[in-house]
């Protein structure tokens, strides 16, 4: 367990004196003032407001997606709520859902558009987790074989006793129904569209509005065909995985 947090941040550029003054100022601000202050300080809020230029590829009422100017790979996208949040636990649940629905759709887009074979979705909450911007964002990184990205997620041996302790701690206020073993198997919700292929054929036109269905359908088909010709096919990706 980490001890009380130390008074230091690795990215610190201000003098200790300045930090103290700023902290004092922040402490005395009302939540509204703080929000305004954060917005003014936040480069991503400036981008969202259109005051700073960016390569925007997606935009809706709640969410914006721009190309990262320092990408891990070409097509690296930053998906952000337009509202200023520092970390994910501050975001209302429905907005979280929407952000990741956009991430999914854009992952689908990049698989098809950039001839990549995978994607990583990464969120860092807190400096210790590698967060560098003060605006919450989801990184969507298109991946290819041998693209020189090496994430390290070591495996540790966690003793059974500790696992039990942690499980009890974590599930404390999750409103969990989970118990130790012995629960009857939960019935899997039938969706009717479980076959992978059917899922995809249904889905793309399904996103259109009825009126546009006819015309767009043709385009979609053409696009899917093009994708499979270049070997980029979601079903393939899924199948390769299944074979493992």
């Amino acid at each position, binding site marked *: 367990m980490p001890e009380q947090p130390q008074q230091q941040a690795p990215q610190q550029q201000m003098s200790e004196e300045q930090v103290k003054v700023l902290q004092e100022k922040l402490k005395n601000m009302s939540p509204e003032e703080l929000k305004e202050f954060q917005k003014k300080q936040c480069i991503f809020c400036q981008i969202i407001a259109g005051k700073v230029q960016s390569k925007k590829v997606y935009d809706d009422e709640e969410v914006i997606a721009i190309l990262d100017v320092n990408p891990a790979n070409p097509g690296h996208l930053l998906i952000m709520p337009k509202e200023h949040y520092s970390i994910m636990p501050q975001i209302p649940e429905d907005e979280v859902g929407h952000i990741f629905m956009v991430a999914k759709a854009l992952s689908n887009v990049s698989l098809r558009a950039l001839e990549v074979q995978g994607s990583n979705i990464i969120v860092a909450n807190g400096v210790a987790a590698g967060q560098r911007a003060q605006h919450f964002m989801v990184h969507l990184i298109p991946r290819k074989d041998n693209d020189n990205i090496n994430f390290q997620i070591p495996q540790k041996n966690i003793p059974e006793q500790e696992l039990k302790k942690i499980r009890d701690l974590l599930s404390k206020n999750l409103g969990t129904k989970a118990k130790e073993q012995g629960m009857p198997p939960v019935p899997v919700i039938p969706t009717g569209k479980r076959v992978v292929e059917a899922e995809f054929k249904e889905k793309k036109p399904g996103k259109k509005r009825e009126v546009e269905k006819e015309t767009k359908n043709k385009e979609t088909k053409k696009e899917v065909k093009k994708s499979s010709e270049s070997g980029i096919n979601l079903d393939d990706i899924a199948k390769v995985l299944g074979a*493992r």
Partner: protein
Amino acid sequence: MADKTRESCLICQIVANKVPSHKVYEDDLTLAVLDVNGANPGHCFVIPKNHYPIIEQVPDQELANLFGVANKISSSIFENLKAQGTNIFVANGIPAGQTVAHFVINVIPRKENDGINLQWKPKQLTQEEMSTVELKLKEQIENIGVGKIEPIEGSKTLSGPVQAGTQPISEDDEDEDYISRQMNRIP
């Protein structure tokens, strides 16, 4: 065929209670278990009960539920494990490091110098390369209609400052405060 998939999929076996696990959360669509070989103690897998190999196959509602649960667990990690940070990590496809053919969200508690590295070295792209990528993505978005994503039911348009009361952790937000404070200090 679906049954066969489930028999050969370790995650489906966990969902069906045929393989023991440490469950942290469970609802109709989603299960969260501890990774017994976690990167840090408290490393959780958030998984859909239905079998989907990759994220593109997960229906929107299920996906929203999954990430909602991941977020709750992330909050719980801050609050109950006193972590200094959390990562949400998804590997989609083998080049991305996916090893199990069942969609999984990793929620990983973090502290300084814990041996986990999710950083990357930025690649230098010319303005022209950036513009090409931008164009390709935009074309594809038009073709498959990402712009038509409808906000989920009950979702509201947010404007104005967020009220303090809307933050999920309100009882004991000491640690969240710590994170927020740190965020505020990043120049």
